[in-house]
C-alpha cells in the first residue's frame, strides 16, 4: 500500500510539470504580442516596452518558463499587471471563498445524491425510481448559468426570499447563510444528479451480488441488508465520484461566481481575463489545477484503500 502511495505521488510530478507548462503557455498561445495585448490596442510603444521589460518577455521562452517556475516553487506567482500587488495576495482571499463554495456544494450534492440514489435503488423500476431519475437527468443536463438565473428569478426577483448576490467569506456562514443557498444549489445540483445516478447503479449492481443473497438467507431484515451489506459496498465507487465532483466544483465555480457576483477565484479569473491581467490568470489557473491534481490523488488513494478487500478477492 505504501508502495502504491509513493508510486502515485511520483506519478503526479510529471503531471504537475505538464500543468505548469500549459499554464505558462497560456500567455504565448494567444496570437499576437503578449505585451501589446496587455497594454491594449493603440497603447504607446513606450508602455508596451515597459510591460515587456517588467514581465521579462524579451528573454528566450525557456528562460521565461524557468524564471516563472523558480518563482512558483518559492511561492511567488508574480505581480498583477493592473494593481501591481503580488498575485499570491490577490488570490489568497479569493481562494478560500471558492473552496468554501465548493465544499458546501459537495456536501449538498452528497446529501441529496445519496438519498435520491438509495431510494431509487431500493424502489427500482417503480414510479418513485423513474421520477427521481427523470429529475436527476434534468439536474444533469441543466447548464449552471441557466439554473442560477432561474433560481434568481424565482427566489430573489419573484419571491424576494433569498438574495441574488452573495458575499461568501472565509469566516463561514455567519450572517450570510441566506446568501449562500442559491449559489450552492446552482453549483451542487449537477453533482447531486451524478452522485444519485452513480449510487443507484452501484446499489443495483451490489443488490444482485451473491453475498446479498447470503445475507437474505441468514434471515436479516431488509433494512440491515440495504444499509449494512449493500450500501457499504455500493459506496466505494461513489467515493471516487464525490472526489471528482469536488474537484470539478473548484474549477466549475466560474459561472456560479459570476452570476452571483461572488468574489472567488472564478470571478477573479474572469475579471483578470477581461483586463488582460495575465499573471493573475496564470496564477489562478495554476492553483486550481494543482488542487485538482491533488484531489484526484487523494481520491485514487482512498479508493484503493477502500477497495483493497475487494480487489484482491
Amino acid at each position: 500500500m505504501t508502495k502504491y502511495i509513493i508510486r502515485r505521488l511520483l506519478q503526479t510530478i510529471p503531471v504537475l510539470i505538464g500543468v505548469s507548462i500549459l499554464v505558462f503557455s497560456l500567455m504565448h498561445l494567444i496570437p499576437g504580442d503578449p505585451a501589446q495585448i496587455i497594454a491594449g490596442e493603440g497603447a504607446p510603444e513606450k508602455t508596451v516596452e515597459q510591460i515587456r521589460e517588467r514581465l521579462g518577455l524579451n528573454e528566450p521562452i525557456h528562460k521565461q518558463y524557468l524564471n516563472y517556475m523558480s518563482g512558483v516553487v518559492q511561492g511567488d506567482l508574480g505581480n498583477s499587471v493592473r494593481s501591481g500587488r503580488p498575485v499570491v495576495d490577490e488570490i489568497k482571499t479569493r481562494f478560500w471563498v471558492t473552496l468554501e463554495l465548493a465544499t458546501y456544494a459537495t456536501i449538498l450534492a452528497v446529501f441529496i445524491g445519496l438519498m435520491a440514489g438509495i431510494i431509487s435503488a431500493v424502489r427500482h423500476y417503480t414510479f418513485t425510481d423513474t421520477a427521481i431519475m427523470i429529475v436527476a437527468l434534468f439536474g444533469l443536463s441543466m447548464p449552471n448559468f441557466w439554473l442560477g438565473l432561474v433560481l434568481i428569478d424565482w427566489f430573489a426577483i419573484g419571491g424576494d426570499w433569498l438574495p441574488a448576490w452573495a458575499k461568501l467569506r472565509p469566516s463561514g456562514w455567519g450572517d450570510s447563510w441566506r446568501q449562500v443557498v442559491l449559489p450552492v444549489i446552482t453549483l451542487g445540483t449537477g453533482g447531486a444528479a451524478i452522485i444519485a445516478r452513480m449510487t443507484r447503479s452501484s446499489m443495483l449492481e451490489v443488490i444482485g451480488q451473491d453475498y446479498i443473497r447470503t445475507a437474505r438467507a441468514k434471515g436479516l431484515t431488509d433494512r440491515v441488508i440495504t444499509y449494512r451489506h449493500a450500501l457499504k459496498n455500493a459506496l466505494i465507487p461513489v467515493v471516487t465520484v464525490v472526489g471528482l465532483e469536488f474537484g470539478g466544483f473548484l474549477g466549475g465555480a466560474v459561472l456560479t461566481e459570476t452570476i452571483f457576483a461572488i468574489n472567488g477565484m472564478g470571478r477573479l479569473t474572469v475579471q483578470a481575463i477581461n483586463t488582460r491581467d495575465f499573471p493573475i490568470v496564470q496564477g489562478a489557473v495554476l492553483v486550481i489545477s494543482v488542487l485538482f491534481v491533488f484531489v484526484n490523488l487523494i481520491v485514487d488513494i482512498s479508493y484503493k484503500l477502500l477497495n483493497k478487500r475487494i480487489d484482491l478477492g
Partner: protein
Amino acid sequence: MVETILDVRDLRTSFYTDEGEVKAVDGVSFSVPKGKTIGIVGESGSGKSITSLSILRLLASNGKVVGGEVRFKGDNLLAYSEKKMRSLRGNKISMIFQEPMTSLNPVFTVGQQISETLIEHQGMSKKAAMAKSVDLLKLVGIPSPDKRVKQYPYELSGGMRQRVMIAIALACNPEILIADEPTTALDVTIQAQILGLIRDLQQRMGMSVVLITHDLGVVAETCDYVAVMYAGQVVEYSDVRTLFRKPKHPYTVGLLKSLPRPDEDQEKLIPIHGTVPSPLHMPVGCRFNPRCPAATDLCREKLPDLFDDGEGNQVRCWIYNEQWPGEKEVDVFGEERTARC
C-alpha cells in the same frame, strides 16, 4: 417410517421475463425425512437452485412461486408472512451456495458475518457472538480460528470460505441445511473434504440435509434419498439403493448408463441423445419424450403424474401406469430393463 421434516408438493416457480413466463420449476415433489440426507440431481438448468431458493422464498424479484406447497413440520411456508419466514432463514433452515468466492460480503470480517446470524436469531451480545464464532470456525475445521475470525474474505481460500459459509449456516443449529452444489467450484481434494465435513456435521448435529449436485457419485456416497430432476420437474424420487439398483425413469436409467463405472468398459458409456428443452419451449406431454427411446403417442400427448409405487418411491413415467399402451417390460437404452412395479 421416519418423521418427515420437509415436504415439497408440486412446487411451481415462474420467472417473468421479456421473452415470457419461464416455468423454471414446474412440478417438484420430494420429502426430507428427519435426520436424513436427500440428494437433488439433474442437469444444469433443470431447476435445482430455483427449487431450493423457492423453499426459502429467496427468489429474485422477477420470480414467483405460483403453486404447490412447502411443508416444514406441517406448516406451509408459502403461506408464512415475510417476517415469520425471516425468523426461519439461517435459523431453522440454512442454506449454502455454489460460489464460495462471492457468497461472503467482502467488506466485513468473517467474525462479523458469523456473529450477525447469532445476534439476529439468538439475541446474543456482540461479544458472546464473536466468541461463539470462534467455536464455530473450530467446528468446521479452520485452523487458528481466533486469528481467522478477524480476517476478511479475501484473505481466505475458496475451501476456507466454504467452511465459513458452513459455519454461518450452522450457527443456530438448523434443522435443515440446504447445500446447493457446495463443492462444484472447488478443487477435487477440497471437494471431498467439504462433503466429508457436511456428512460429519450432519451426523453430529442430527440435522437433515438437502444436497444439490449433479454428481451421482456424490449422491451414492452421501445421500439416503434422491430426487432426480429433469426440465423443472422431479421425474423420480426414491431411496438411494433402489435408485441405483432399479432406476425406473428412462432419464435416470440414461443418467446411470452415462456414468463411467469401474467394473465396465468405458466404451459401453451411452450418452442420452438430444438436448435439454428450453424452459420457454417445453415439449407437449412428457418433457423427456423427445429424447426417450421408449416414447409412445401417449407420452407425446399427456404429461404423466408422479406415480407412487406404494413403497414411498415415485416416478413420472407412463410406463408405470395402467394407461401404458406398450409392452409391460420396456427395454430402455438397449440393455437395462426397467421393470414394471
